[in-house]
């Protein structure tokens, strides 16, 4: 009796959450201004993080809240504010009814096809869970998601770091030539903002403890380099937008070293695998856990710096020499 009730209560919560996610998503798409749309999108991301918790994916929930909603939201909201002068004009270029109708039909078909896949699943649900569980004891990593990210599919994670670096290079190269190597942002003295400045003085130390904890606990529980790095990046971004500290010059040696140290150590350990283990990115059995933790620590640093600089945008000031 009581379990039946609990299940029903859970399902009511799930149905309400799903409806809310959809409603907010519709709101973000049809919103009157780009600013309102971005606010809707950030809300959507946070609600999605709750959905991830309901799907037993706390690692993903942390990543979605920090990166998918938080840092992405910061980038989009800054862009919406900058693009406001052009908004009315480009919004007027709305496509005609035939195209909108065709797009609606196409979207509905895609959605219906996916819904069919959801409603008619293959009889034994496919799962790599048992395969992932086999080597967990040897790795001494209690969190299977961390094990997949840094052991079984380490090459994906390595390439993803390279993608992050490439994106940052792409962003930087969009700056006018004369700004190359300079600090990101507009060439104006960052003004300190009262209420925000206070938060930026009090919160970052707390955020650092939380970030390091999330990184450390990632070996045995939800958490890890991405989530911890995103929290550290958020603290840095807070300090920068509150005007307490300026963004660093993108040409600085220390900044560039921090950017590459994570991927470089990861790659070095991977190459060492040829010599001391079975091949690229193979860890010697007895050192797997310390190696993974060492990689995660430097990766966290690099991720934090890359995310912070991606959110700051291309260099906008000439380099001071």
């Amino acid at each position, binding site marked *: 009796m009581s379990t039946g009730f609990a299940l029903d209560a859970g*399902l009511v919560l*799930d*149905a309400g959450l799903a409806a809310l*996610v959809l409603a907010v*998503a*519709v709101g973000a*798409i049809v919103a009157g201004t*780009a600013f309102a749309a971005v606010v809707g999108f950030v809300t*959507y*991301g946070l609600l999605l993080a709750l*959905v991830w918790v309901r*799907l037993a*994916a706390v*690692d*993903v929930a942390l*990543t*979605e809240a920090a*990166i*998918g909603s938080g840092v*992405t939201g910061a*980038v989009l909201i800054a*862009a919406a504010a*900058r*693009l406001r002068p*052009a908004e009315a*004009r*480009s*919004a007027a*270029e709305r496509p005609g009814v035939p*195209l*909108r109708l065709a*797009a*609606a039909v*196409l*979207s509905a078909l895609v*959605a*219906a096809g*996916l819904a069919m896949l*959801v*409603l008619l*699943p293959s009889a034994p*649900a*496919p*799962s*790599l*869970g048992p395969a*992932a*569980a086999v080597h967990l004891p040897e790795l001494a990593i209690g969190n299977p*998601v961390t*094990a997949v990210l840094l052991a079984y*599919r380490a090459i*994906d994670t390595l390439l*993803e770091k390279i993608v992050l670096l*490439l*994106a940052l290079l*792409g962003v930087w190269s*969009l700056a006018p*030539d004369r700004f190359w190597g300079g600090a990101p942002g507009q060439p104006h003295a960052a003004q300190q903002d009262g209420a925000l400045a206070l938060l930026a003085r009090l919160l970052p130390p707390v955020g650092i403890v939380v970030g390091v904890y999330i990184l450390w606990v990632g070996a045995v529980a939800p958490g890890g380099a*991405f989530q911890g790095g995103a929290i550290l990046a958020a603290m840095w971004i807070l300090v920068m937008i509150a005007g307490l500290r300026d963004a660093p010059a993108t040409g600085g040696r220390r900044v560039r070293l921090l950017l590459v140290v994570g991927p470089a150590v990861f790659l070095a350990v991977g190459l060492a695998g040829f010599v001391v283990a079975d091949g690229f990115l193979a860890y010697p059995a007895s050192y797997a856990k310390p190696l993974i933790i060492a990689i995660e620590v430097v990766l966290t640093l690099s991720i934090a710096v890359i995310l912070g600089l991606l959110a700051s*945008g291309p260099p906008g000031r000439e380099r001071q020499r």
Partner: protein
Amino acid sequence: MSAETLYGLCAAALVGLGLFGSIVDPQPLRKILAFNLLGGGVFLLFGVIARRGAAAGMAADPVPQAMVITGIVVAFSATALAVTLLLRLFETTGQATLRTGAPARPDPDSDRAGS
């Protein structure tokens, strides 16, 4: 109906919604936003598949979950790059439109940047 099916249907609707928005909305920034919304739907489908694949004492299949974490980070990189491209377009032409043949104003940096 189970919670997984419920969220699966929600994910399918999100993909449709995001696809519609990214085709129909004329503003590039909102196309980027809609595309991210679409991405959220795709990731959620992964989450549903992972939850259905619960096995070996795990609450969900960790492989799709790890792929989604990678996916979220890559989606952010692409978004940051796309937004920067858009802002550069706006700085250079004074407008934010993807329409071909839009009148452009001369690039203020071209005298320095051009070779």
